[in-house]
């Protein structure tokens, strides 16, 4: 120990709950990297720009596709996980910019991810 200078850090620190958020963040990160480019390109830009032909992609077909049982996976992968990904970064960004940290910021960030995810899930369940 160095006499007269900084004390050593806490000896038995508390286990962080970050592994939960970080796992969701990482899973979301993979989805964003792998899937978002495709969807952004083909659906959100492709449809309005006519890259994907509208007649081939009729309302019924798309409806069947999205509300197919496997579509739940898609909702998870392109909405829920990316939400946690985004809110995780925002949470840390608030800390980085010294705007807010501590419990409130954490509750707000992950809370809104949970809320919006529930919204997505209920939309899918109720409209299926």
């Amino acid at each position, binding site marked *: *120990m*160095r*006499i*007269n*200078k900084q004390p050593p850090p806490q000896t038995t620190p508390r286990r962080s709950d970050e592994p939960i958020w970080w796992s969701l963040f990482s899973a979301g990160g993979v989805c964003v990297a792998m899937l978002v480019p495709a969807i952004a390109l083909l659906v959100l830009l492709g449809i309005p720009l006519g890259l994907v032909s509208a007649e081939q992609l009729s309302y019924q077909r798309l409806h069947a596709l999205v509300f197919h049982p496997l579509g739940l996976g898609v909702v998870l992968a392109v909405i829920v996980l990316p939400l946690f990904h985004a809110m995780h970064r925002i949470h840390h960004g608030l800390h980085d910019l010294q705007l807010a940290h501590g419990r409130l910021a954490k509750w707000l960030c992950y809370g809104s991810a949970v809320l919006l995810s529930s919204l997505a899930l209920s939309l899918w369940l109720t409209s299926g």
Partner: protein
Amino acid sequence: MLSLAKTITTDVLVVGGGGAGLRSAIAACETNPKLKVTLLSKVYPMRSHTVAAEGGAAAVTQAHDSLQAHFDDTVSGSDWLADQSVVDYFVKHAFDELVQLEHWGCPWSRQPSGDVQVRRFGGMKTERTWFAADKTGFHILHTLFQTSLKYSGIQRLDEYFLLDLLVHEQRCYGVLAIDIASGDLVQIQAASVILATGGAGRLYQFNTNGGIVTGDGMALAYRHGVALRDMEFVQYHPTGLPGSGILITEACRGEGGILLNKDGYRYLQDYGLGPETPPGQPQNKTMELGPRDKLSQAFWHEQQQGRTIQHPQGEVVHLDLRHLGQRYLLERLPFICELAKAYVNVDPVKSPIPIRPAVHYTMGGILTDANCATSIRGLYAVGECASVGLHGANRLGSNSLTELLVFGKVAGREAARLASEPSQPAADSLLSTLTTQALAPLQQLHNSQGSERWQPLRQQLAASMEQGCGIYRSEAGLKETLTCLAQLKQRYQQLRLGDSGKAFNTDLLHALELGFGLDVAEAMCQAALERKESRGAHQRQEPGLTNRNDQDFLRHSLAFYQTRPGARIEWQAVDTSLSPPAERLYGGQRPRGQSSAGQQPTDNPPKESR
């Protein structure tokens, strides 16, 4: 007025956080876990110069090797000036200490089988040098430092500068130190004190040593009446970078590097080190793997004959590694590749590295017995600052890292043993008298109205040592240097500090280091002057003195401090109980070699070569 800011009491005080200091602190703790062990160092332990050692640490490891062989190599390497029972103890404990370090986590390089790998090293007949890539000292030091954190008994005083020892009537009671961060003066009382302050290579202009290697501990013990032994033996390393002196490890040659003069000729064969071995197929104790002193001396002769190469930073020869190939170089010598690129802008894969000899190691040091005890009760010394009797006139590469471990353990154990005995603490009045005495020189520095600065003085000291007390010495040169030292000491009295602050006053510390250095330099020169023969690293130029003279000088020199200029030299018998003196033979001159017929073994290079 200077006054003490605080007092610390401890059982064992270790001064120095290098390999020797850390090893002894751990040993002290293990000997008696109840003791309070304090480790004081002017730099954080992992900045100590042990960190810079590249090559490796020796211990008999392979089945076909033997303790006797390691003993013989060390004794003949020392030119019979090593104390043989000390060498015997050393070779017997070397392996266990390296294993201990392995058990503490040192990342030694391995064979495919998972066993530790050993490499060749100059002056050793067999491969017995353990290494951790080319950063052996770094890994040893960090392993020791990190392991030391495990012991709650060790308390560290990082960045504390040892100012003086508190000694009265041959008994050491503690030390006086400066807390560098605050500039506060601290008195540390201790039952035993271990000096592990490292060598003194910084006294020379071209050296491989770090800025902290200034001989502080040597000077302090010396001033308090302990003899400095064998100080005339200063090892030049044949391969330092021009300018900075940064070391290019001997392992380069162990791996098969070759030395070339300006004609691209492997000149070592002209200096009794031949016959020439094919490039990339090094042979122990031959050519490039001859001992350091011979190689450095060969350079000196080449330079005299005008066969060295002009480099912007002075005369050099070439160390050629190109034939080893990129892959091998990057695997075995990555740090060397990095150093050469950064400091001389040379890629060893593509071009030969310019090198020149540079002062590397001080064989001599504070006289101790085989238990690392000095003549002052309670004061021990270990590592490069000490002379336990292992290296004699010339240290073999890779023996000193092992020395730090083997004798670090001894010193720690002995110091702990003494500290565990009941003893009479010093009276307060005595301590305060000793403290006042110790503060006087510091007080003088602070009050000085003189006009001298330490930098030019240090510069002159280094130049003069290189000039008069270098690879080859003569009476005239040594006397000139001694005169210069006396003048420098005079001028030192007129020193004036450029920084009057207390916090991190490095100006003050460098001035103090210069003061220490001047005393150590004097001991070196005086001993060199009085050793009228050539042995190991000490080579005299005068006719009649160019050979070893066992009749008169198979003895250790002991330098004693005196207030007037120069040191008082006495002589001490060498322990040669186990192996009688013989010639040091290298290359084809070795009895085992077949090609030595008719060649006169000689320590001197031929006048006419080729």
